[in-house]
């Protein structure tokens, strides 16, 4: 099965991904106000849908978000990051 690979735009943010039991956790640190604002919009997008536990956002200090993502929402989350132009590229490898 192919794996989804992505590359962040390094001037906008840093992103760490790790597995936590079934979930996938991301620690995303915005490097400027514009990127942080985009992450806010992404958060609003996932919080305004009717599913509460698909992608959960937790704000920490210094423009950092921790994101807990259900396995079935992993691809949608990556694609939304891409849609908001926080990722350079996304591909199946």
């Amino acid at each position: 099965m192919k794996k989804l690979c992505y590359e962040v735009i390094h001037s906008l943010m840093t992103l760490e991904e790790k597995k936590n039991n079934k979930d996938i956790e991301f620690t995303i640190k915005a490097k400027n106000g514009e990127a942080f604002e985009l992450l806010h919009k992404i958060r609003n997008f996932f919080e305004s849908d009717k599913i509460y536990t698909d992608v959960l956002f937790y704000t920490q200090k210094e423009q950092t978000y921790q994101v807990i993502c259900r396995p079935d929402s992993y691809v949608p989350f990556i694609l939304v990051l891409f849609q908001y132009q926080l990722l350079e590229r996304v591909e199946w490898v």
Partner: protein
Amino acid sequence: MANEEAIIAIGIFLITYAFIISEKIHRTIVAMIGGVLMVLFGVVDQETALHHIDFNTLGLLTGMMIIVTITAETGLFKFIAIWAAKKVKGHPMAILIVLSLITAVGSAFLDNVTTVLLMVPVTFSITRRLGITPMPFLISEILMSNIGGTATMIGDPPNIMIGSAVKELSFMDFITNLAPVIIITIVVVMLVLTLIYRKHLYTDDKTRKRIMDLNEKDEITDKPLMIKAITVMGLTILGFFLHQAMGVESATIALAGAFLLLLLSGEHYLEGALSKVEWTTIFFFVGLFVLVSGLVETGVIERFAVYAIDITGGNVTASSILILWMSAIASAFVDNIPYVATMIPLVQQMGELGINNLEPLWWSLALGACLGGNGTLIGASANVIVSGLAGKEGYRISFLKFMAIGLPIMFITVAISTVYIYLRYLI
């Protein structure tokens, strides 16, 4: 002819009630059709039917729904929940208690369904962060929304209806008479729940730190609007305390608060706020008021009141205890709104037939109808809403699983209420 009308009224009422219980068709459609049939069959004329619609109940509900809708958009409730979770250092058991208390207090002043709708997302968020199951939290929030809602006149539809129908009972009367027993009930129920769930609520220091790292201030999406909403909500609650002294109905207070907030927040909130008013609930009430008017106008309620007085011998103690337990058991299985809509004229009629002190009967009805909602998963709207949301997220609350906790809790809380009613009003 009067007897024929009474039989038609009972027939329409029972068929409508059966459809409401069966939940095959939306309860609002059923109640409205039942109400319309009362008029079409000539049981009541349109003028009389309109006279029976309690616009104070409808206005109060609408006003509060508008205020809550706008306030919820500010992120205030998420802020409070995360702030409280941090205050208790992220201990799961303590978080269970604070989220439950927030739900209880929220439900006392807001609609129960709205309160749980605000609490459930933040509960999922906090429990996922702690890596523990949300089930104890969800069940506790269901129970607390029904218990907390009992404490005030605006907390639960049965209380809104009773407060609206009985002009002598003020907002303050509800608090002074119901809040004491509800505080005792909350303490007892929380003790029981912490005993039941103590083994599920454990996490290590590292995980707890994940809660302490959260930035609750980021949850506030619109600070100026939040300040306006809190101010208006405070003024509205103050208005409820003073409404009797001011000589205005509670609906006037709620609607004044709602439209003051809309004035302050700007008209771009108008469409959204009005569209989020639960019109299905409002029309459900309209249908029920007309439906019950058929029973009142044809003398059916009066006959039942005579029968109830025959059973209890007109004794206030027996009548209160009967109403309390009958209401609790009925509300565990059927919607408490139509039940209370039927019981209000019955209790009023019992007063006209010679029971002088109706006060314990009203409090028994309020306590029974509200606390009974905890008995089963279908006992109250908040139960249905939370179980639906939980199921969608992969946490199924089954009917039996809920009843295993809800029914004993219902019996405990109604038993506490029985002792309270007896000691405070009947000896």
